[in-house]
């Protein structure tokens, strides 16, 4: 007899995983060969050097204090900026998407905020607030909020007018309209901008920490750069990749699947309850 469907499905899934890992193995191979040829592991770290640095980070003991404290400091800043951007951006985004004059008012301001490089914000805020946690958080919020606003406003503009008319006809008040009509409609837009904001944030947070602060992954990177040790820098990059990947898969993936449960199955497969 032929193979049962379930094992076959598993096999394709494994094959897909195996295929997806090939480019990573190739990249590590090229990296290894090149760094071996260059033969200066301090500046051009080989994979074993980086692995050693990673082990050092994992042990928690670092030359500039506990690595876990630095990781926690960075994640704290990222989380605060992310949440503030998401809440403020969603609120302004809905307003901008539904009220034309609000959109016209903030449109140009948004582009200014989106165009200013993160490091410019860092220096501006460093002068304004001094060396403190406020600087990286404010800089990231200034960068992420406009992005959320643009995404959510796009979604708010696309709310079907027949649903809005229905709500008007049933004399639905502003609060109910926002909570029961706009927000649920915008959930896919909000989750996707949350995902993008987080991905952008995890890249930016290290940059914003380089100036002045004595904690955080950005501080670690700067420390190893001044000592011209590249191994730990690459290792910290890998730590950020892993954190980003884990949060994306374990937090945003399930949320996205959960919030779209009312969308129904794709590709025309219907739940048993459908009756003509």
């Amino acid at each position, binding site marked *: 007899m032929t193979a049962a469907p379930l094992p076959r499905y598993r096999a394709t899934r494994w094959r897909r995983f195996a295929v997806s890992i090939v480019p990573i193995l190739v990249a590590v191979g090229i990296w290894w060969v090149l760094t071996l040829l260059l033969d200066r592991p301090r500046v051009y770290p080989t994979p074993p050097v980086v692995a050693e640095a990673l082990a050092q980070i994992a042990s928690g003991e670092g030359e500039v204090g506990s690595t876990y404290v630095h990781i926690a400091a960075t994640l704290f800043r990222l989380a605060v900026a992310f949440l503030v951007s998401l809440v403020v951006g969603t609120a302004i985004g809905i307003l901008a998407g539904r009220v034309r004059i609000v959109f016209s008012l903030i449109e140009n301001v948004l582009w200014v905020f989106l165009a200013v490089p993160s490091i410019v914000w860092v220096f501006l805020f460093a002068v304004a607030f001094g060396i403190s946690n406020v600087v990286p958080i404010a800089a990231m919020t200034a960068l992420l909020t406009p992005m959320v606003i643009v995404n959510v406003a796009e979604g708010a503009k696309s709310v079907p007018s*027949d*649903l809005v*008319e*229905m*709500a*008007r*006809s*049933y*004399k*639905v*008040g502003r609060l*109910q309209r926002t909570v*029961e*009509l706009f927000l*649920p*409609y915008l*959930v896919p837009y909000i989750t996707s901008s949350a995902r993008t904001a987080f991905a952008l944030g995890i890249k930016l947070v290290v940059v914003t920490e380089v100036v002045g602060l004595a904690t955080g992954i950005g501080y670690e990177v700067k420390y190893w750069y001044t000592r011209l040790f590249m191994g730990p820098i690459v290792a910290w990059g890998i730590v950020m990749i892993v954190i980003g990947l884990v949060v994306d898969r374990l937090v945003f993936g399930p949320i996205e699947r959960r919030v779209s449960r*009312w*969308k*129904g199955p794709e590709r025309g497969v*219907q*739940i048993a*309850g*459908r*009756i*003509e």
Partner: protein
Amino acid sequence: MTEPGHAVDTATALPADPPETTSAGGPFDVELRNVTLLFPRPDGKGTLPVYENFDLAVEPGSFTVLLGPSGCGKSTLLNIVDGLLAPAQADTLKVLGRDLRTDPDVTRQCAYVFQNARLLKWKTLRGNVEFGLRGLKVQPKARWAELMDRYFGVVGLRDFMDYYPHQVSGGMQQRAAIVRAFVNEPRILLMDEPFSHLDEITAAELRRELVRLWTQDAQRRTVMFVTHDISEAVQLGQRIIVLTPRPATICHEEIVDLPYPRFSNDERVFAIEQTLRTVLAERAGVQV
């Protein structure tokens, strides 16, 4: 009225002798006099009159059908009654005897069934009906469960209250939309071609249900029903008002004094359908 298809061939829709007072709100549930409504032209230059000096009065408890070619502004009329559109000018603009312009809250007594179901897909059928109840605020929360049970039951959806719209058929979605309106027990029901998107079998079934829902109440609700379907108009309406293309005017009025249910193989029904066909062809310039 001895003749079943008695035609009131008059330019105005107002009965010559309005009845004294049939409800607390006055002689009419809906009273529009000298209404002018303008739409901006698509190119932004000037306006397009949809209604000019338009008069209409609807008696309490009546089933009025507005029949006319598509695009003549039948739905617009319902939107005016529901307060969704404000006419440029009107001498009288009354719903339940109260002026819409000074007393817009009176439209909470109107409930609308649209051409498409317009359900929120993230809410169950029950959630969608509650959305309307919470909006109109006419029924006290204590009555919601009882009302929903009753009206979901009437349309045969009691077992499907907790399904999401995508899990049920288009006919069931439209039934839920009808429940969303009826559950408020509105004084005035506004229905805008509610069955036009459905297959004929489902549509016929829902028409029968609508008549049943409407006739079962001791004090009947006022229904304003828009359609471009002649046989639907004759099956449902007590009074059929034929509108011309823009600017819309009433070109014919037909009183249908036949018992429900009406069937199109009934020769009296057929005769009225023929009359309406002729009127639409001659007065509204529509070949049906």
